[in-house]
C-alpha cells in the first residue's frame, strides 16, 4: 500500500525522539543546568571537539546534548498534554452541540466559527500579557489550540452517526443521550478525531517553540527547543551549533508528525485525501 515506507520512517523517528526524551536522565545524569565554565562554547565532536560534549557546549559551558534531550522531553510532554486538552474540550463541545441542538448548538457553532476566523496566537499573546506565562496556564493555552476543529468534526460526525442503524436501535431501547453519545457514537467517530489530533500535535509543537523562542513560553531555568534557539541566537556568528541542534530537532519532529498524520488520514478516510 502507498505510504507504508513513510509510515514506518515517520513512526520510528518519533519513537526515537520519545526514547531520547524518556532517557534524558540517563543520557545526561548531571541534568541540563550543569555548568562547565572551563569548556565554554566548545565545538561538537565532528568539528574537533571532545567526546565529553558530543554536540559541543553553550556560552556557560552547558552540554548541548544534555540540554537537547531535556528540551525534547519538555516539548513532547507539553505538546502531549496540550493535544489531549484540546481533543477533550473540542470533542465535548461538538458532542454537546450535536446532542442539544437548537439555540445551544447555534451558539456553540458561532463561537467555533469565530475561533476559526481569528489567528489563535494573537489571542494567546493577549492572555499571556495579561496573566504572565506560568507553565500550567501556558500548557492550557496551548491545549486550546485547534479545539474548534475537534468540535466541528465531532458535531458533524455525530449528527450523521446518530441516523445509522445501531444508534437508532440504542435510542429505541431507551438509552440516555449521555450513554448514546459517549458509549456508542464516540467510539465510532474516534478515528477521524485521532487523525485530527495527529495533525494538530506538530502544530502545537511549533506554537510552543515559537512562543518560547519569543520569550513568552517556557521560561528558564526550564528548557525547551524554542528557548534553546532563542538563547543560542546571540552566538550565531561564533557558535552556530547551539542553535543548529534544537532547530534540526524541531524540523524533524514537525515533519515526521505531519507525514504520519497525512498518511493516516489518507488511509482511514480516502475521501479526505488531497492527492498530495
Amino acid at each position, binding site marked *: 500500500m502507498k505510504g507504508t515506507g513513510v509510515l514506518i520512517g515517520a513512526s520510528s523517528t518519533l519513537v526515537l525522539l520519545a526514547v531520547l526524551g524518556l532517557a534524558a536522565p540517563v543520557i545526561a545524569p548531571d541534568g541540563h543546568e550543569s555548568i562547565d565554565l572551563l569548556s565554554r562554547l566548545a565545538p561538537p565532536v565532528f568539528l574537533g571537539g571532545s567526546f565529553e560534549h558530543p554536540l559541543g557546549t553553550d556560552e556557560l559551558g552547558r552540554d548541548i546534548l544534555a540540554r537537547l534531550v531535556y528540551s525534547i522531553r519538555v516539548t513532547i510532554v507539553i505538546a502531549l498534554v496540550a493535544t489531549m486538552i484540546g481533543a477533550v474540550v473540542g470533542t465535548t463541545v461538538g458532542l454537546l452541540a450535536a446532542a442539544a441542538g437548537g439555540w445551544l448548538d447555534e451558539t456553540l457553532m458561532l463561537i467555533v466559527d469565530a475561533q476559526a476566523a481569528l489567528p489563535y496566537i494573537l489571542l494567546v499573546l493577549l492572555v499571556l500579557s495579561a496573566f504572565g506565562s506560568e507553565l500550567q496556564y501556558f500548557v492550557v493555552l496551548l491545549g486550546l489550540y485547534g479545539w474548534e476543529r475537534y468540535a466541528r468534526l465531532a458535531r458533524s460526525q455525530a449528527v450523521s452517526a446518530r441516523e445509522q442503524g445501531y444508534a437508532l436501535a440504542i435510542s429505541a431501547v431507551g438509552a440516555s443521550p449521555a450513554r448514546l453519545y459517549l458509549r456508542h457514537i464516540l467510539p465510532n467517530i474516534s478515528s477521524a478525531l485521532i487523525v485530527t489530533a495527529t495533525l494538530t500535535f506538530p502544530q502545537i509543537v511549533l506554537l510552543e517553540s515559537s512562543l518560547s*523562542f519569543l520569550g513568552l513560553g517556557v521560561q528558564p531555568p526550564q528548557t525547551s527547543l524554542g528557548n534553546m534557539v532563542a538563547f543560542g541566537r546571540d552566538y550565531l556568528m561564533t557558535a552556530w551549533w547551539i542553535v543548529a541542534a534544537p532547530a534540526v530537532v524541531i524540523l524533524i519532529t514537525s515533519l515526521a508528525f505531519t507525514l504520519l498524520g497525512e498518511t493516516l488520514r489518507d488511509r482511514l478516510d480516502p475521501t479526505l485525501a488531497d492527492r498530495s
Partner: protein
Amino acid sequence: MTSYVSVKLLRAFVTTFILVTFAFTVLRMSGDPSTAVLGLDVDAAAQERFHERWGLDRPLTEQFADYLRDLAVGDFGRSFVGDRPAISVVLDRLPQTLTLMGAALALALLIGVPLGGLAAFRYGTPADRAIIAGATVGYCVPDFVIGILLILLFGATLQILPISGNASLAHYIMPVLALAAPNASLFARITRSAVLDVLSQPHVIAARMRGLPWSTTALRHIVPNASIPVITIFGLVLGGLVVGATVTENVFAWPGVGQLLVTSARNRDLAVVQTIVILGGVAMVLANLMVDLFCAWIDPRIRVTSR
C-alpha cells in the same frame, strides 16, 4: 445573493463582537488596574478615587458599553511606555509590517502558484514529487527556524546579507524569504490539488478532445475553475502572514507591529497588545468576508448551495 451577503455580514459582525468581548473579559480579569498603576500598597481611599475616576465602580454592563464606545471612536487606551495613545504607537509601526507582508505575499504567489500548476500537469513524475516534497518541508518548518537558517547561511557563513533592521533593500531579502516560504508551500499544495481536480472534470476533457488550442483550454476552462480554492485560502494565508510576521520581525529585528506586539506582551503593556489583537482580528474578519463575497460573485454555485 442578498441573503448570502447579509448572512456573511452578520457572521463577520458576530465574530468581531466575540473578539471584543474576549478582549474585555481578559482585561477585566487580569486584576485590579488600580494596583497595577498605583502599586500593591495603595491605600483604600486612593483606590476608591481611582475606581471612580475610571468608572470601575459601575456595573460591568455599563463598563462594557463604554469600552465598545471607546473602541468605536478609535480609543484603545494609553500605552504606559512613553504615555501615548496605543493606537498611534501601533499605527507608527504599521507601514513597515505591511510592506514586509505585501512583499512576502507577492513572492509566495509568484513561487507557489506556478510550481503547484506545474506539479499538477506533470502529475506522478519526479518533478511533481520534488515539488510536493519541497512544499511539505516548507510547510512544516516554523518561520523562525527558516529565519535562523537563512541568517546562518547568508549572514554568518557567506556574510553577504545584513541580518537585522530595515535600512536598505538588501535588508528585505531574508525576512521576505522566511515569511514567504510557508505560504508559497501552501499555495503550491492548494494549486496542485485544485488543478488536478479540474483536469479530471468532463468539461476540460471534452475541451481537450475537441482539439481546442492548449492555451484556450487553460485560460477558459482550467484557470477560472482552479482559482476558486486558491482564492479561498487567502484568508488562511493572511492569518499565516500575521502570525509569521510576528515571529519573523523578531528574528530579524524588523521594526514593525510584530516586534511591537512581542515587546509589549513581555512588558505587559496591555493597551498596545489589545490594540494589535483587535486590529489584527478585524483585518482577518474583513479579509475572509471579502474572499467569501468574491468567490460567490465569480461562482454562482457557492451563493446558492451554502446557507
